[in-house]
Protein backbone atom coordinates (compact mmCIF):
# COMPACT_ATOMS: atom_id res chain seq x y z
CA UNK A 1 0.00 0.00 0.00
CA UNK A 2 1.55 3.26 -1.05
CA UNK A 3 -0.30 5.61 1.27
CA UNK A 4 0.47 4.90 4.92
CA UNK A 5 -2.46 4.57 7.22
CA UNK A 6 -4.84 3.38 4.52
CA UNK A 7 -4.14 -0.33 4.65
CA UNK A 8 -7.43 -2.23 4.51
CA UNK A 9 -9.02 -2.60 7.89
CA UNK A 10 -8.04 -6.04 9.18
CA UNK A 11 -11.35 -6.29 10.97
CA UNK A 12 -13.31 -6.25 7.76
CA UNK A 13 -11.17 -7.63 4.97
CA UNK A 14 -10.59 -10.95 6.61
CA UNK A 15 -10.11 -14.65 6.34
CA UNK A 16 -6.58 -13.93 5.24
CA UNK A 17 -4.35 -16.89 5.93
CA UNK A 18 -1.20 -15.08 4.82
CA UNK A 19 -0.55 -13.33 8.13
CA UNK A 20 2.97 -13.56 9.46
CA UNK A 21 3.82 -16.09 12.12
CA UNK A 22 6.28 -14.41 14.47
CA UNK A 23 7.32 -17.61 16.19
CA UNK A 24 7.83 -19.98 13.28
CA UNK A 25 11.15 -18.53 12.16
CA UNK A 26 12.47 -18.16 15.66
CA UNK A 27 11.85 -21.64 16.92
CA UNK A 28 13.33 -23.10 13.77
CA UNK A 29 16.43 -20.97 14.27
CA UNK A 30 16.69 -22.07 17.87
CA UNK A 31 16.34 -25.66 16.71
CA UNK A 32 16.58 -28.47 19.22
CA UNK A 33 18.05 -26.09 21.81
CA UNK A 34 14.49 -24.96 22.60
CA UNK A 35 13.21 -27.45 25.11
CA UNK A 36 9.72 -28.87 25.31
CA UNK A 37 7.81 -26.89 27.91
CA UNK A 38 4.80 -28.22 29.77
CA UNK A 39 3.35 -24.73 30.19
CA UNK A 40 3.57 -24.11 26.45
CA UNK A 41 1.85 -27.38 25.70
CA UNK A 42 -0.98 -26.77 28.16
CA UNK A 43 -1.52 -23.15 27.15
CA UNK A 44 -1.53 -23.91 23.45
CA UNK A 45 -4.02 -26.72 23.77
CA UNK A 46 -6.21 -24.80 26.18
CA UNK A 47 -6.59 -21.98 23.69
CA UNK A 48 -7.03 -24.54 20.93
CA UNK A 49 -9.94 -25.98 22.86
CA UNK A 50 -11.71 -22.64 22.94
CA UNK A 51 -10.98 -21.98 19.28
CA UNK A 52 -12.50 -25.37 18.56
CA UNK A 53 -15.49 -24.20 20.61
CA UNK A 54 -16.04 -21.30 18.21
CA UNK A 55 -15.97 -23.75 15.30
CA UNK A 56 -18.31 -26.22 16.97
CA UNK A 57 -20.74 -23.48 17.96
CA UNK A 58 -21.60 -22.83 14.31
CA UNK A 59 -22.29 -26.49 13.68
CA UNK A 60 -24.21 -26.82 16.94
CA UNK A 61 -26.47 -23.93 15.93
CA UNK A 62 -27.28 -25.50 12.57
CA UNK A 63 -27.79 -28.94 14.06
CA UNK A 64 -30.07 -27.80 16.88
CA UNK A 65 -32.33 -25.87 14.52
CA UNK A 66 -32.47 -28.74 12.07
CA UNK A 67 -33.49 -31.02 14.93
CA UNK A 68 -35.99 -28.48 16.26
CA UNK A 69 -37.77 -28.25 12.92
CA UNK A 70 -37.96 -32.01 12.29
CA UNK A 71 -41.76 -32.03 12.73
CA UNK A 72 -42.52 -29.58 9.92
CA UNK A 73 -39.75 -30.84 7.66
CA UNK A 74 -41.32 -34.29 7.89
CA UNK A 75 -44.91 -33.13 7.52
CA UNK A 76 -44.67 -30.48 4.80
CA UNK A 77 -41.29 -31.16 3.15
CA UNK A 78 -40.35 -28.74 0.38
CA UNK A 79 -43.99 -27.59 0.13
CA UNK A 80 -43.27 -25.50 3.21
CA UNK A 81 -41.35 -23.10 0.99
CA UNK A 82 -44.02 -22.61 -1.66
CA UNK A 83 -47.29 -22.71 0.29
CA UNK A 84 -48.87 -19.46 1.41
CA UNK A 85 -51.29 -20.68 4.07
CA UNK A 86 -50.20 -19.73 7.56
CA UNK A 87 -52.98 -20.89 9.82
CA UNK A 88 -52.09 -21.67 13.46
CA UNK A 89 -55.74 -22.61 14.16
CA UNK A 90 -55.78 -25.40 11.58
CA UNK A 91 -52.08 -26.13 12.16
CA UNK A 92 -51.27 -25.54 8.48
CA UNK A 93 -47.99 -23.78 7.75
CA UNK A 94 -46.35 -22.43 4.61
CA UNK A 95 -43.60 -19.86 4.61
CA UNK A 96 -44.12 -18.31 1.17
CA UNK A 97 -45.53 -14.92 2.30
CA UNK A 98 -42.59 -14.44 4.63
CA UNK A 99 -40.03 -15.47 2.04
CA UNK A 100 -41.57 -13.07 -0.48
CA UNK A 101 -41.76 -10.30 2.14
CA UNK A 102 -38.10 -10.79 3.05
CA UNK A 103 -37.10 -10.73 -0.63
CA UNK A 104 -39.13 -7.62 -1.48
CA UNK A 105 -38.01 -5.60 1.55
CA UNK A 106 -34.34 -6.57 1.08
CA UNK A 107 -34.39 -5.81 -2.63
CA UNK A 108 -36.01 -2.44 -2.00
CA UNK A 109 -33.34 -1.73 0.61
CA UNK A 110 -30.54 -2.70 -1.76
CA UNK A 111 -32.02 -0.63 -4.59
CA UNK A 112 -31.63 2.44 -2.40
CA UNK A 113 -28.52 1.54 -0.41
CA UNK A 114 -26.25 0.23 -3.21
CA UNK A 115 -25.98 3.45 -5.26
CA UNK A 116 -25.77 5.58 -2.14
CA UNK A 117 -23.27 3.29 -0.42
CA UNK A 118 -21.07 3.13 -3.52
CA UNK A 119 -21.15 6.92 -3.77
CA UNK A 120 -20.07 7.17 -0.14
CA UNK A 121 -17.30 4.61 -0.67
CA UNK A 122 -16.01 6.44 -3.75
CA UNK A 123 -16.05 9.72 -1.91
CA UNK A 124 -14.21 8.31 1.10
CA UNK A 125 -11.63 6.25 -0.78
CA UNK A 126 -10.99 8.37 -3.86
CA UNK A 127 -12.04 11.97 -3.38
CA UNK A 128 -12.05 13.05 0.26
CA UNK A 129 -8.98 14.79 1.64
CA UNK A 130 -7.31 12.68 4.26
CA UNK A 131 -8.14 14.88 7.24
CA UNK A 132 -11.83 14.62 6.36
CA UNK A 133 -11.85 10.91 5.58
CA UNK A 134 -11.27 9.57 9.10
CA UNK A 135 -14.08 11.42 10.90
CA UNK A 136 -16.50 10.80 8.02
CA UNK A 137 -15.75 7.08 8.00
CA UNK A 138 -16.40 7.05 11.71
CA UNK A 139 -19.76 8.76 11.25
CA UNK A 140 -20.81 6.19 8.65
CA UNK A 141 -19.73 3.37 10.96
CA UNK A 142 -21.68 4.87 13.85
CA UNK A 143 -24.81 4.31 11.79
CA UNK A 144 -24.07 0.60 12.05
CA UNK A 145 -23.71 0.84 15.83
CA UNK A 146 -27.20 2.21 16.52
CA UNK A 147 -29.33 -0.64 17.87
CA UNK A 148 -32.06 -1.97 15.64
CA UNK A 149 -34.68 -1.16 18.26
CA UNK A 150 -33.79 2.55 18.17
CA UNK A 151 -34.21 2.54 14.38
CA UNK A 152 -37.59 0.95 14.97
CA UNK A 153 -38.57 3.55 17.54
CA UNK A 154 -37.63 6.31 15.13
CA UNK A 155 -39.46 4.44 12.37
CA UNK A 156 -42.73 4.26 14.30
CA UNK A 157 -42.79 7.86 15.49
CA UNK A 158 -41.07 9.76 12.67
CA UNK A 159 -40.74 7.77 9.44
CA UNK A 160 -44.19 6.13 9.37
CA UNK A 161 -46.22 9.34 10.00
CA UNK A 162 -44.07 11.19 7.46
CA UNK A 163 -44.69 8.50 4.83
CA UNK A 164 -48.42 8.40 5.55
CA UNK A 165 -48.94 12.17 5.47
CA UNK A 166 -46.52 13.31 2.78
CA UNK A 167 -44.73 10.70 0.72
CA UNK A 168 -47.42 8.08 0.06
CA UNK A 169 -50.16 10.57 -0.99
CA UNK A 170 -47.67 12.18 -3.37
CA UNK A 171 -46.51 8.84 -4.81
CA UNK A 172 -50.12 7.70 -5.07
CA UNK A 173 -51.29 10.71 -7.04
CA UNK A 174 -48.23 11.01 -9.29
CA UNK A 175 -47.15 7.40 -9.82
CA UNK A 176 -50.41 5.71 -8.82
CA UNK A 177 -50.73 4.09 -12.26
CA UNK A 178 -47.92 1.70 -11.24
CA UNK A 179 -49.06 -1.32 -9.23
CA UNK A 180 -46.38 -0.59 -6.62
CA UNK A 181 -47.95 2.63 -5.42
CA UNK A 182 -51.63 1.72 -5.11
CA UNK A 183 -53.91 1.31 -2.16
CA UNK A 184 -54.53 3.21 1.05
CA UNK A 185 -51.61 4.95 2.74
CA UNK A 186 -51.18 3.38 6.17
CA UNK A 187 -47.58 4.44 6.59
CA UNK A 188 -46.82 1.00 8.01
CA UNK A 189 -45.87 -1.37 5.21
CA UNK A 190 -43.26 -2.61 2.77
CA UNK A 191 -42.11 0.89 1.81
CA UNK A 192 -41.34 1.87 5.40
CA UNK A 193 -39.52 -1.44 5.95
CA UNK A 194 -37.46 -1.04 2.78
CA UNK A 195 -36.49 2.52 3.67
CA UNK A 196 -35.43 1.74 7.21
CA UNK A 197 -33.52 -1.34 6.01
CA UNK A 198 -31.69 0.76 3.43
CA UNK A 199 -30.43 3.08 6.18
CA UNK A 200 -29.31 0.04 8.17
CA UNK A 201 -27.42 -1.78 5.40
CA UNK A 202 -25.85 1.33 3.90
CA UNK A 203 -22.94 1.54 6.37
CA UNK A 204 -21.98 -2.08 5.66
CA UNK A 205 -22.00 -1.62 1.91
CA UNK A 206 -20.19 1.73 2.17
CA UNK A 207 -17.46 0.70 4.59
CA UNK A 208 -16.64 -2.62 2.93
CA UNK A 209 -16.67 -1.10 -0.56
CA UNK A 210 -14.33 1.59 0.75
CA UNK A 211 -11.92 -1.04 2.09
CA UNK A 212 -12.15 -2.90 -1.19
CA UNK A 213 -11.43 0.24 -3.26
CA UNK A 214 -8.39 0.88 -1.10
CA UNK A 215 -6.90 -2.51 -1.90
CA UNK A 216 -6.65 -1.49 -5.56
CA UNK A 217 -2.97 -0.52 -6.03
CA UNK A 218 -2.30 3.23 -6.20
CA UNK A 219 -0.18 2.50 -9.25
CA UNK A 220 -3.35 1.94 -11.29
CA UNK A 221 -4.66 5.36 -10.33
CA UNK A 222 -1.34 7.03 -11.05
CA UNK A 223 -1.13 5.35 -14.45
CA UNK A 224 -4.61 6.54 -15.40
CA UNK A 225 -3.97 10.08 -14.18
CA UNK A 226 -0.65 10.19 -16.02
CA UNK A 227 -2.45 9.33 -19.26
CA UNK A 228 -4.61 12.39 -18.76
CA UNK A 229 -7.72 10.76 -17.30
CA UNK A 230 -9.93 12.88 -15.08
CA UNK A 231 -10.60 11.89 -11.48
CA UNK A 232 -13.90 10.26 -12.44
CA UNK A 233 -12.36 8.34 -15.35
CA UNK A 234 -9.69 7.10 -12.95
CA UNK A 235 -12.36 6.09 -10.47
CA UNK A 236 -14.14 4.12 -13.19
CA UNK A 237 -10.94 2.14 -13.76
CA UNK A 238 -10.59 1.51 -10.03
CA UNK A 239 -14.23 0.42 -9.86
CA UNK A 240 -13.71 -2.05 -12.68
CA UNK A 241 -10.72 -3.53 -10.89
CA UNK A 242 -12.68 -3.73 -7.63
CA UNK A 243 -16.01 -4.97 -9.03
CA UNK A 244 -15.88 -8.44 -7.51
CA UNK A 245 -15.09 -7.02 -4.10
CA UNK A 246 -17.99 -4.59 -4.41
CA UNK A 247 -20.26 -7.52 -5.22
CA UNK A 248 -19.03 -9.06 -1.96
CA UNK A 249 -19.93 -5.88 -0.08
CA UNK A 250 -23.42 -5.93 -1.59
CA UNK A 251 -23.90 -9.58 -0.59
CA UNK A 252 -22.87 -8.76 2.98
CA UNK A 253 -25.42 -5.95 2.97
CA UNK A 254 -28.05 -8.34 1.66
CA UNK A 255 -27.21 -10.78 4.45
CA UNK A 256 -27.83 -8.06 7.00
CA UNK A 257 -31.09 -6.95 5.35
CA UNK A 258 -32.45 -10.48 5.24
CA UNK A 259 -31.94 -11.07 8.95
CA UNK A 260 -32.80 -7.64 10.31
CA UNK A 261 -35.63 -8.03 12.77
CA UNK A 262 -36.74 -5.37 15.22
CA UNK A 263 -36.81 -2.25 13.07
CA UNK A 264 -38.61 -4.13 10.30
CA UNK A 265 -41.11 -5.77 12.65
CA UNK A 266 -42.02 -2.37 14.06
CA UNK A 267 -42.80 -0.70 10.72
CA UNK A 268 -43.79 -3.41 8.21
CA UNK A 269 -47.36 -3.88 9.43
CA UNK A 270 -47.09 -7.65 10.02
CA UNK A 271 -49.72 -9.17 7.75
CA UNK A 272 -49.06 -12.43 5.93
CA UNK A 273 -50.33 -11.25 2.53
CA UNK A 274 -48.52 -11.11 -0.76
CA UNK A 275 -49.23 -7.85 -2.55
CA UNK A 276 -47.62 -5.99 -5.42
CA UNK A 277 -48.13 -2.65 -3.71
CA UNK A 278 -45.34 -1.31 -1.52
CA UNK A 279 -48.00 0.54 0.48
CA UNK A 280 -49.61 -2.61 1.82
CA UNK A 281 -48.46 -4.29 5.04
CA UNK A 282 -46.22 -7.32 4.73
CA UNK A 283 -44.32 -9.75 6.87
CA UNK A 284 -40.73 -11.04 6.81
CA UNK A 285 -39.19 -14.30 7.99
CA UNK A 286 -37.41 -12.56 10.85
CA UNK A 287 -40.45 -10.59 11.99
CA UNK A 288 -42.80 -13.58 12.05
CA UNK A 289 -40.37 -15.33 14.40
CA UNK A 290 -40.12 -12.21 16.58
CA UNK A 291 -43.89 -11.77 16.74
CA UNK A 292 -45.18 -15.29 17.12
CA UNK A 293 -42.47 -17.40 18.72
CA UNK A 294 -43.30 -16.65 22.34
CA UNK A 295 -46.98 -17.36 21.68
CA UNK A 296 -46.61 -20.49 19.58
CA UNK A 297 -48.96 -22.94 21.25
CA UNK A 298 -48.55 -26.24 19.45
CA UNK A 299 -45.38 -28.20 18.79
CA UNK A 300 -45.98 -28.00 15.05
CA UNK A 301 -46.32 -24.20 15.25
CA UNK A 302 -43.00 -23.90 17.13
CA UNK A 303 -41.39 -26.29 14.69
CA UNK A 304 -42.59 -24.20 11.73
CA UNK A 305 -41.05 -21.07 13.25
CA UNK A 306 -37.79 -22.90 14.01
CA UNK A 307 -37.70 -24.08 10.39
CA UNK A 308 -37.98 -20.46 9.25
CA UNK A 309 -35.07 -19.59 11.56
CA UNK A 310 -33.12 -22.52 10.12
CA UNK A 311 -33.77 -21.20 6.60
CA UNK A 312 -32.57 -17.74 7.63
CA UNK A 313 -29.46 -19.33 9.16
CA UNK A 314 -28.63 -21.26 6.00
CA UNK A 315 -29.27 -18.24 3.75
CA UNK A 316 -27.16 -15.84 5.81
CA UNK A 317 -24.34 -18.36 6.27
CA UNK A 318 -24.14 -18.90 2.51
CA UNK A 319 -24.37 -15.17 1.71
CA UNK A 320 -21.70 -14.29 4.26
CA UNK A 321 -19.38 -17.13 3.30
CA UNK A 322 -19.54 -16.28 -0.41
CA UNK A 323 -19.12 -12.56 0.26
CA UNK A 324 -16.15 -13.03 2.60
CA UNK A 325 -14.45 -15.34 0.11
CA UNK A 326 -14.92 -12.81 -2.68
CA UNK A 327 -13.63 -9.88 -0.63
CA UNK A 328 -10.76 -11.94 0.70
CA UNK A 329 -9.62 -13.31 -2.64
CA UNK A 330 -9.64 -9.79 -4.04
CA UNK A 331 -7.50 -8.42 -1.22
CA UNK A 332 -5.13 -11.32 -1.79
CA UNK A 333 -4.94 -10.80 -5.53
CA UNK A 334 -3.75 -7.22 -5.17
CA UNK A 335 -1.44 -8.01 -2.29
CA UNK A 336 0.52 -10.55 -4.31
CA UNK A 337 0.30 -8.55 -7.53
Amino acid at each position, binding site marked *: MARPGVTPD*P*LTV*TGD*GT*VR*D*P*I*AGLSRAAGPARKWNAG*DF*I*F*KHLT*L*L*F*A*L*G*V*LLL*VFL*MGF*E*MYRGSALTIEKFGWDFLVTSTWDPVLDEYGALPFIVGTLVSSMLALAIAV*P*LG*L*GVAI*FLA*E*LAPRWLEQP*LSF*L*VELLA*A*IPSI*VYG*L*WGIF*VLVPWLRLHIQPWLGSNLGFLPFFQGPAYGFGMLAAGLILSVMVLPIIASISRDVLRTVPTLQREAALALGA*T*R*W*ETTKIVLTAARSGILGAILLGLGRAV*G*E*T*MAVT*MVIGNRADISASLFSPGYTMASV*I*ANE*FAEATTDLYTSALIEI*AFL*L*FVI*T*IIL*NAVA*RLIVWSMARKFKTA
Partner: protein
Amino acid sequence: MNGTGWWRFRWRKAKNLGMSTFAAACLLLSVAPLVLIFSYTLIQGISSLNLAFFVQMPKPVGETGGGMANALAGTGILIGLGALFGLPVGIMGGIYLAEYGNNPFGASVRFLADVMSGVPSIVVGVVAYVLVVLPMNHFSALAGGVALAILMVPTVTRTTEEMIRLVPHSYREAGLALGIPQWKTTVRIILPAALKGITTGVLLAIARAAGETAPLLFTALGNRFWSTAVDQPIASLTVFIYDYAKAPFEDWNRQAWAAGFVLISLILVISVIFRVVTRSRYAEH
Protein backbone atom coordinates in the same frame (compact mmCIF):
# COMPACT_ATOMS: atom_id res chain seq x y z
CA MET B 1 -6.75 22.53 -30.12
CA ASN B 2 -9.54 21.90 -32.60
CA GLY B 3 -13.21 22.53 -31.82
CA THR B 4 -14.45 18.98 -31.17
CA GLY B 5 -11.45 18.21 -28.99
CA TRP B 6 -12.11 21.26 -26.87
CA TRP B 7 -15.77 20.35 -26.41
CA ARG B 8 -14.87 16.81 -25.54
CA PHE B 9 -12.45 18.11 -22.95
CA ARG B 10 -15.14 20.37 -21.43
CA TRP B 11 -17.56 17.44 -21.41
CA ARG B 12 -15.12 15.22 -19.56
CA LYS B 13 -14.41 17.96 -17.03
CA ALA B 14 -18.13 18.51 -16.52
CA LYS B 15 -18.73 14.79 -16.03
CA ASN B 16 -15.90 14.66 -13.53
CA LEU B 17 -17.39 17.54 -11.57
CA GLY B 18 -20.88 16.03 -11.78
CA MET B 19 -19.80 12.62 -10.48
CA SER B 20 -17.71 14.13 -7.68
CA THR B 21 -20.70 16.18 -6.59
CA PHE B 22 -22.86 13.06 -6.77
CA ALA B 23 -20.47 11.16 -4.48
CA ALA B 24 -20.41 14.02 -2.00
CA ALA B 25 -24.20 14.23 -2.12
CA CYS B 26 -24.40 10.48 -1.38
CA LEU B 27 -22.32 11.02 1.72
CA LEU B 28 -24.50 13.89 2.90
CA LEU B 29 -27.63 11.87 2.25
CA SER B 30 -26.21 8.89 4.18
CA VAL B 31 -25.08 10.84 7.18
CA ALA B 32 -28.44 12.65 7.29
CA PRO B 33 -30.33 9.70 8.90
CA LEU B 34 -27.66 9.45 11.58
CA VAL B 35 -28.05 13.11 12.42
CA LEU B 36 -31.85 12.86 12.25
CA ILE B 37 -32.15 9.73 14.40
CA PHE B 38 -29.57 10.84 16.89
CA SER B 39 -30.88 14.38 17.32
CA TYR B 40 -34.47 13.16 17.55
CA THR B 41 -33.57 10.55 20.17
CA LEU B 42 -31.56 13.18 22.01
CA ILE B 43 -34.39 15.73 22.07
CA GLN B 44 -37.11 13.22 22.93
CA GLY B 45 -34.89 11.32 25.33
CA ILE B 46 -33.55 14.21 27.38
CA SER B 47 -37.00 15.74 27.84
CA SER B 48 -38.36 12.34 28.94
CA LEU B 49 -35.56 11.37 31.23
CA ASN B 50 -36.01 11.88 34.96
CA LEU B 51 -34.86 10.35 38.20
CA ALA B 52 -37.98 8.17 38.41
CA PHE B 53 -36.88 6.42 35.21
CA PHE B 54 -33.79 5.08 36.96
CA VAL B 55 -35.10 4.30 40.42
CA GLN B 56 -38.81 3.40 40.12
CA MET B 57 -40.60 0.28 38.99
CA PRO B 58 -43.06 0.23 36.06
CA LYS B 59 -46.54 1.41 37.07
CA PRO B 60 -49.60 -0.70 36.26
CA VAL B 61 -51.25 -0.16 32.87
CA GLY B 62 -53.05 3.19 32.72
CA GLU B 63 -51.11 4.97 35.44
CA THR B 64 -48.54 7.53 34.39
CA GLY B 65 -45.08 7.83 35.85
CA GLY B 66 -42.88 5.08 37.12
CA GLY B 67 -39.58 3.95 35.68
CA MET B 68 -37.56 1.02 34.47
CA ALA B 69 -35.34 0.20 37.43
CA ASN B 70 -36.03 -3.51 36.94
CA ALA B 71 -35.12 -3.30 33.23
CA LEU B 72 -31.83 -1.57 33.99
CA ALA B 73 -30.95 -4.29 36.48
CA GLY B 74 -32.19 -6.93 34.06
CA THR B 75 -30.07 -5.68 31.17
CA GLY B 76 -27.10 -5.59 33.54
CA ILE B 77 -27.66 -9.20 34.59
CA LEU B 78 -28.21 -10.35 31.00
CA ILE B 79 -25.02 -8.81 29.66
CA GLY B 80 -23.20 -10.05 32.76
CA LEU B 81 -24.29 -13.61 32.00
CA GLY B 82 -23.46 -13.11 28.33
CA ALA B 83 -19.97 -11.89 29.21
CA LEU B 84 -19.49 -14.76 31.67
CA PHE B 85 -20.16 -17.38 28.98
CA GLY B 86 -18.98 -15.53 25.90
CA LEU B 87 -15.78 -13.73 26.89
CA PRO B 88 -13.66 -16.76 27.87
CA VAL B 89 -14.44 -18.48 24.58
CA GLY B 90 -13.87 -15.31 22.58
CA ILE B 91 -10.68 -14.18 24.28
CA MET B 92 -9.03 -17.61 24.43
CA GLY B 93 -10.09 -18.30 20.85
CA GLY B 94 -8.61 -14.94 19.83
CA ILE B 95 -5.33 -15.74 21.60
CA TYR B 96 -5.16 -19.04 19.75
CA LEU B 97 -5.75 -17.35 16.39
CA ALA B 98 -3.10 -14.70 17.02
CA GLU B 99 -0.45 -16.94 18.55
CA TYR B 100 -0.89 -20.33 16.90
CA GLY B 101 -3.54 -19.75 14.24
CA ASN B 102 -1.34 -19.63 11.17
CA ASN B 103 -2.59 -22.93 9.79
CA PRO B 104 -5.64 -24.26 7.93
CA PHE B 105 -7.48 -24.86 11.22
CA GLY B 106 -6.86 -21.28 12.35
CA ALA B 107 -7.96 -19.99 8.97
CA SER B 108 -11.22 -21.93 9.15
CA VAL B 109 -11.96 -20.74 12.71
CA ARG B 110 -11.27 -17.18 11.58
CA PHE B 111 -13.50 -17.61 8.55
CA LEU B 112 -16.36 -19.21 10.50
CA ALA B 113 -16.17 -16.52 13.19
CA ASP B 114 -16.62 -13.91 10.47
CA VAL B 115 -19.46 -15.80 8.85
CA MET B 116 -21.07 -16.34 12.24
CA SER B 117 -21.08 -12.61 12.94
CA GLY B 118 -23.45 -12.32 9.98
CA VAL B 119 -26.03 -14.73 11.44
CA PRO B 120 -29.14 -12.72 12.39
CA SER B 121 -29.60 -12.18 16.11
CA ILE B 122 -33.16 -13.53 15.95
CA VAL B 123 -31.75 -16.88 14.76
CA VAL B 124 -29.38 -16.91 17.73
CA GLY B 125 -32.44 -16.35 19.92
CA VAL B 126 -34.10 -19.43 18.43
CA VAL B 127 -30.94 -21.46 19.11
CA ALA B 128 -30.90 -20.32 22.75
CA TYR B 129 -34.58 -21.25 22.96
CA VAL B 130 -33.91 -24.77 21.72
CA LEU B 131 -30.78 -25.17 23.87
CA VAL B 132 -31.97 -23.65 27.15
CA VAL B 133 -35.68 -22.82 27.26
CA LEU B 134 -36.94 -26.16 25.97
CA PRO B 135 -34.96 -28.33 28.43
CA MET B 136 -35.80 -25.99 31.37
CA ASN B 137 -39.40 -25.75 30.22
CA HIS B 138 -39.70 -22.02 30.91
CA PHE B 139 -38.22 -18.66 29.86
CA SER B 140 -35.23 -17.47 31.87
CA ALA B 141 -32.49 -14.89 32.20
CA LEU B 142 -30.06 -17.75 31.65
CA ALA B 143 -31.43 -18.38 28.16
CA GLY B 144 -31.11 -14.67 27.35
CA GLY B 145 -27.52 -14.70 28.63
CA VAL B 146 -26.68 -17.69 26.43
CA ALA B 147 -28.12 -15.90 23.38
CA LEU B 148 -26.08 -12.75 24.09
CA ALA B 149 -22.95 -14.88 24.69
CA ILE B 150 -23.29 -16.54 21.28
CA LEU B 151 -23.64 -13.09 19.73
CA MET B 152 -20.51 -11.82 21.51
CA VAL B 153 -18.20 -14.72 20.64
CA PRO B 154 -17.33 -13.88 17.00
CA THR B 155 -16.68 -10.17 17.64
CA VAL B 156 -14.61 -10.78 20.76
CA THR B 157 -12.58 -13.52 19.04
CA ARG B 158 -11.69 -11.37 16.06
CA THR B 159 -11.04 -8.19 18.07
CA THR B 160 -8.77 -10.02 20.53
CA GLU B 161 -6.82 -11.50 17.63
CA GLU B 162 -6.40 -8.15 15.89
CA MET B 163 -5.37 -6.37 19.08
CA ILE B 164 -2.72 -8.98 19.90
CA ARG B 165 -1.37 -8.73 16.37
CA LEU B 166 -0.92 -4.99 16.84
CA VAL B 167 1.63 -5.55 19.61
CA PRO B 168 5.07 -4.87 18.08
CA HIS B 169 7.05 -7.93 17.11
CA SER B 170 10.04 -6.80 19.15
CA TYR B 171 8.17 -7.32 22.45
CA ARG B 172 7.82 -10.99 21.72
CA GLU B 173 11.39 -11.36 20.54
CA ALA B 174 12.66 -9.64 23.68
CA GLY B 175 10.69 -12.03 25.89
CA LEU B 176 11.83 -15.13 24.03
CA ALA B 177 15.43 -13.90 23.95
CA LEU B 178 15.39 -13.78 27.74
CA GLY B 179 14.49 -17.46 27.76
CA ILE B 180 10.92 -16.96 28.90
CA PRO B 181 8.64 -19.76 27.69
CA GLN B 182 6.32 -18.75 24.90
CA TRP B 183 3.15 -19.08 26.96
CA LYS B 184 4.56 -16.84 29.66
CA THR B 185 5.64 -14.31 27.05
CA THR B 186 2.08 -14.29 25.78
CA VAL B 187 0.44 -14.00 29.19
CA ARG B 188 2.86 -11.63 30.90
CA ILE B 189 4.13 -9.44 28.04
CA ILE B 190 1.89 -9.58 24.98
CA LEU B 191 -1.51 -9.61 26.70
CA PRO B 192 -0.76 -6.67 29.03
CA ALA B 193 0.46 -4.68 26.03
CA ALA B 194 -2.75 -5.48 24.13
CA LEU B 195 -4.98 -5.13 27.18
CA LYS B 196 -6.25 -1.63 26.44
CA GLY B 197 -7.38 -2.62 22.95
CA ILE B 198 -8.89 -5.91 24.07
CA THR B 199 -10.77 -4.25 26.93
CA THR B 200 -12.35 -1.60 24.75
CA GLY B 201 -13.14 -4.20 22.08
CA VAL B 202 -14.85 -6.31 24.71
CA LEU B 203 -16.74 -3.25 25.99
CA LEU B 204 -17.91 -2.57 22.46
CA ALA B 205 -19.17 -6.14 22.10
CA ILE B 206 -20.98 -5.81 25.44
CA ALA B 207 -22.54 -2.50 24.44
CA ARG B 208 -23.77 -4.04 21.19
CA ALA B 209 -25.22 -6.95 23.14
CA ALA B 210 -26.99 -4.50 25.46
CA GLY B 211 -28.73 -3.10 22.38
CA GLU B 212 -30.03 -6.49 21.22
CA THR B 213 -33.75 -7.11 21.37
CA ALA B 214 -34.66 -9.92 19.01
CA PRO B 215 -32.75 -12.71 20.82
CA LEU B 216 -34.35 -11.75 24.15
CA LEU B 217 -38.00 -11.78 23.06
CA PHE B 218 -38.47 -15.48 23.64
CA THR B 219 -35.54 -16.33 25.89
CA ALA B 220 -35.47 -13.74 28.70
CA LEU B 221 -39.04 -12.78 27.70
CA GLY B 222 -39.51 -9.76 29.97
CA ASN B 223 -40.91 -9.06 33.39
CA ARG B 224 -42.84 -6.16 34.85
CA PHE B 225 -41.68 -6.96 38.36
CA TRP B 226 -38.37 -6.87 40.15
CA SER B 227 -36.48 -10.07 39.51
CA THR B 228 -32.82 -10.92 39.63
CA ALA B 229 -33.28 -14.69 39.57
CA VAL B 230 -31.27 -16.31 36.83
CA ASP B 231 -33.81 -19.07 36.23
CA GLN B 232 -36.81 -16.73 35.88
CA PRO B 233 -37.94 -14.41 33.07
CA ILE B 234 -36.21 -11.06 33.39
CA ALA B 235 -36.85 -7.52 32.16
CA SER B 236 -34.54 -5.72 29.74
CA LEU B 237 -34.34 -2.17 28.42
CA THR B 238 -34.69 -3.18 24.80
CA VAL B 239 -37.76 -5.38 25.24
CA PHE B 240 -39.32 -2.56 27.26
CA ILE B 241 -38.69 -0.15 24.39
CA TYR B 242 -40.36 -2.59 22.02
CA ASP B 243 -43.45 -3.02 24.21
CA TYR B 244 -43.73 0.64 25.15
CA ALA B 245 -43.24 1.92 21.59
CA LYS B 246 -46.17 -0.16 20.32
CA ALA B 247 -48.43 0.74 23.27
CA PRO B 248 -51.13 3.39 22.78
CA PHE B 249 -50.18 5.29 25.96
CA GLU B 250 -48.32 8.54 25.55
CA ASP B 251 -46.48 8.14 28.83
CA TRP B 252 -45.20 4.72 27.79
CA ASN B 253 -44.01 6.15 24.46
CA ARG B 254 -42.17 8.82 26.42
CA GLN B 255 -40.42 6.19 28.52
CA ALA B 256 -39.50 4.24 25.39
CA TRP B 257 -37.65 7.32 24.13
CA ALA B 258 -35.92 7.74 27.48
CA ALA B 259 -34.73 4.13 27.34
CA GLY B 260 -33.64 4.56 23.73
CA PHE B 261 -31.63 7.58 24.73
CA VAL B 262 -29.88 5.72 27.56
CA LEU B 263 -29.04 2.88 25.19
CA ILE B 264 -27.74 5.02 22.37
CA SER B 265 -25.60 7.15 24.73
CA LEU B 266 -23.99 4.04 26.16
CA ILE B 267 -23.15 2.70 22.72
CA LEU B 268 -21.92 6.01 21.33
CA VAL B 269 -19.61 6.70 24.26
CA ILE B 270 -18.06 3.23 24.05
CA SER B 271 -17.71 3.46 20.25
CA VAL B 272 -15.84 6.75 20.56
CA ILE B 273 -13.53 5.33 23.25
CA PHE B 274 -12.85 2.27 21.07
CA ARG B 275 -12.05 4.51 18.13
CA VAL B 276 -9.62 6.65 20.14
CA VAL B 277 -7.87 3.67 21.69
CA THR B 278 -7.45 1.68 18.48
CA ARG B 279 -6.32 4.72 16.55
CA SER B 280 -3.54 5.50 18.96
CA ARG B 281 -2.48 1.86 18.71
CA TYR B 282 -2.33 1.99 14.93
CA ALA B 283 -0.33 5.20 15.14
CA GLU B 284 2.53 3.43 16.91
CA HIS B 285 3.49 1.68 13.70
